[in-house]
C-alpha cells in the first residue's frame, strides 16, 4: 500500500526526491504518512482536496484486499523551513 501511495505522490510532484512516505502499522489499522516539499503540497492535495481524497479512496480499495483499515495523512509543512525528521 505504501508503494501505491509513493508511486502516485512521486508522479504528482515537481520534486519527487523530496517525497517521504511512512507506514505505521497497528494491529488492525495502518497509517500512511506523506511528506512532500512545501511547494508541492498543493499538488498532492488538489483543489478542494480533490487529489488527496482520490488517493484515500484508492488506498481504501487496495486495503480491502488485505482486510485492514487505512488512513492516509498528508503532513503539513514543517515550521522550521523544510527540515524534515
Amino acid at each position, binding site marked *: 500500500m505504501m*508503494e*501505491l501511495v509513493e*508511486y*502516485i505522490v512521486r*508522479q*504528482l510532484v515537481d520534486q519527487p526526491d523530496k517525497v517521504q512516505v511512512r507506514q505505521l502499522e497497528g494491529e488492525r489499522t495502518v497509517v500512511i504518512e506523506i511528506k512532500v516539499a512545501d511547494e508541492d503540497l498543493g499538488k498532492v492535495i*488538489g*483543489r*478542494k482536496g*480533490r*487529489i488527496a*481524497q*482520490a*488517493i*484515500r*479512496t*484508492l488506498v481504501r*480499495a*487496495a486495503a*480491502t*484486499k*488485505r482486510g485492514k483499515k487505512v488512513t492516509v495523512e498528508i503532513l503539513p509543512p514543517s515550521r522550521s523551513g523544510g527540515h524534515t525528521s
Partner: protein
Amino acid sequence: MKAIEKRARTVEEAIEAALCELNVTRDEVEIEVLEESGRGRFNILGSQQARVRVTLKPELILKGVVKNIVERMGATVIVEEPVEKEGAFYINIGGADAGLIIGRNGATLDAMQVIVSEIVRKRCNSSVLIWVDADRYRERRWEQVRKMALEAMQRAKAERRRIRLYNLKAAERRIVHLTLQNNPDVITYSEGEEPNRVLVIAPADLGPRPTRKPSERSQRMQRNQQREHRHGVSRNRSARREQRGTGMNLQDDAY
C-alpha cells in the same frame, strides 16, 4: 503531440538523450529513426550522426500509469489498450478484480480517473481528457443514463410536468443534456448544489421553475458576509473561498 529530434553518434545514444530530455521511458514514446549512423556516403572522415525523432504518446503514458497503479493496489486485472474516441482517451480494465477497481457507485473508478488524469497531464504537459473504466462499467452506465433521459422525456411530455433525475454525477447530467438538446419539446437544466444537484427535464412550454426568493437563512448569511467584509474581518474566509470556488468548478456545477 510533443516530439523532439536528437542527434548523436549512434541511434541508441540519440534515443537515450531524447528519453532523458522528455523524462519518459521507452514504452511511452514512438521512436522514428530519421538517419542511421555510419560512414557518410562518400566515406568521408567524420562519419554521419544518427538522428531520431521521439514522440510522446499520451495513450502509452496512460496505459503505463494505470498499470503501475493497479499493480501496486495488488489487483488481479488486465489493462486493455487505450482507444481514442471523441477527443478523449478511453481505457478499460478487465479481469477478476475489476469490481474492486469500480467501487461503490464507481467511486474508486472516479478516484482512479482523477489521479491518472492528473499524472498524465503532468507527464504530457498538456491537458488530455481521460476516461478510466473497469468491466465497461462506465459505458454501461452511460447507456443506462441515455435511456433514462429518453424515458423521462416521454414522461415529461405525456404528463406535462417537470421530471427530476436524482443522483446523477456531473458527467452523467451532461449526457442527459446532450441526449435531449436537439429535442424541441423539452428543456433540461440542473438545480441545487452538489452533492444534491438535481437534473430537471421540463416540457418546453412549461419552462423552468421560477427561481425562488432566497431563503431567510441565506439572506442572513449574505448580510453577515457583507458586514465582515466592511470590517475587514476574515473569520469566514474559507467559507467564502469555497463559495467562490464552486462557481468556477465546471466539473461539478456547469451541468
